[in-house]
């Protein structure tokens, strides 16, 4: 199954919904959102993503909160299928 990993800063979470739509249009049904945390807590990030999470009942969605761009890049090698297989 096709996957897509998307990196966002915690200040640009409003872009997540559109990017998920694009990924779905490309046939990606496993989507990982990698969020680089600066000012927001994990709870605040999840809260802001609530509508995106609740509105997307079809894809397998995961949210990975990291502290730096470097950590985010490391996660770009993630094989999301490992979680579900």
């Amino acid at each position, binding site marked *: *199954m096709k996957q897509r990993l998307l990196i966002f800063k915690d200040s640009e979470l409003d872009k997540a919904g559109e990017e998920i739509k694009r990924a779905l249009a490309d046939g990606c*049904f*496993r989507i*990982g959102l990698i969020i680089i945390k600066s000012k927001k*807590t*994990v*709870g*605040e*990030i*999840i*809260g802001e*993503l*609530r*509508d995106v*999470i*609740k*509105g*997307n*009942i*079809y*894809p*397998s*969605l*995961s*949210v*990975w*909160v*990291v502290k730096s761009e470097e*950590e985010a890049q490391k*996660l770009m090698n993630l094989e999301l299928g*490992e*979680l*579900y*297989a």
Partner: protein
Amino acid sequence: MRKFDIILSTDRSLMTNHHGKEFLGFGTTMPLILPRRFIQWLFCPPMKHEDGIVWQAPYGLRRIEARLVHDGFSAAVVDPDYVPRYIERGAKVLIIRHHDWFGLNPPTTTWTAFIDKEPLNAVLFREFIETVCKLRDRYDFKIIVAGPAVWQWLHMNDLIDRYHIDVIVDSNGDREEIVISRIVKRILEGKPVPSYVKMGIKDNLTIDKLVPIVHASVNGLIEIGRGCPRKCAFCSVGSRPVRWYPLEFIEKEIQINVKEGVDHGILSCTDVLLYGSDTVIPNEDAVLKVNMLAKKYWRQVGWSHCTLAAAVANKKLIDAVTEILIDGENQKLLGVEVGVESGSVKLMRMHMPAKSRPFPIERWPEIVEEAFALFHEHNIVPAATIIVGLPGEEEDDVKATTELVRRLRPYRSLIVPMFFVPMGPSRLGRQEWFRKIKHYHVDLLMACLDHALYWAERLVEEYMTDRKYFIIKRALRWFLNKVKESRGKVEEKLREYAEANT
């Protein structure tokens, strides 16, 4: 006392067998209007255990435990009171599963709309998680939360930080055990884990990946299938395809329960009458076989859910299946939850057009009455739900539902009104919560209460025939009398409340 890398638990509202009577579990959604010790004793007494290893545990926890053990981890379900001790002994991961973490599900929301007191299940969870949190300063362990109601964390997101929740697994039951096993592996290997993970429809669990439970489940409840063909918009289960478990798998889970001393059980799925069917027409042979199998091992067999339309679609099947289950000696009734949801054809067509299939939705109120009559005749007791405040609801819709509830009075049943909650993931998951009742809602709520008062006392007698229930029955009768005495005041309060909303 043994040591485990992974422990699984939940609070007392679920780590109990409700005195062997599953239906009493609904009492845990009640706000603390009576002394807490009394309602806790009545609805969720402690579970028998040995060094904290419980005798029966909620089925969802058992499924995860079975998968973890199968994958080679050292894991066990432990009593909530023993969680600190197992963490002190070195557990690295605590998995908590719940149905209603913060009292936001429809039954609790309905109570708390009028009664400004915290529901028992929410109190018990809060106390449990706060005890766990205190251990965080001294011990290094991760917390995973899972279960069908994890969507509640999305609404109470500040608590994710306060309670230091590491991973939220939002699976609606599908593949939950596999995903948790993978996450546990990552934790133990020191790899990053997601803060939130949800399984999509294309990642549905296939039957061949199922691992049977390894210890007894609460009241012998075992799953016989997943998904639902009716796909009602308010419900998340319908977003999953239908899969029925093979009889051999079901038998293994029954045998585990019997081996560990559970002599009664519940077949759980969205519609027991559709077991083995690819459509909305019952597969008679499959339904009889699964029920015969259960009755071969258990003195009493209950069903978690069935649909009214499936019952009406094959009335002879109801004859045959009750002949198997209701033997008159060990079992006199068959309890089951059903969804009436609304008496309004307009609302049914809007949100759940397949609820009546194979019959047209225009016949819905008629199907409900026919099914209730059929059940009454066969000693099946439905506990029916009504959804109050569905999106698009108008006065006439509520009136139609109230009239339907009144017409159901002759049939032995309970009818429970529940306020609409946008449960996720469902097609109505982003709609507004229903909170404000109008005068016509009061008529509906009172019709449901009157129905309950009419039947409840008789049901208590018939539901608890064993002598060991003598004290519980007295307590329930006392409680019912209190409700009867307060009926007038309840109506008055509701009318005041509705008046304030207009």
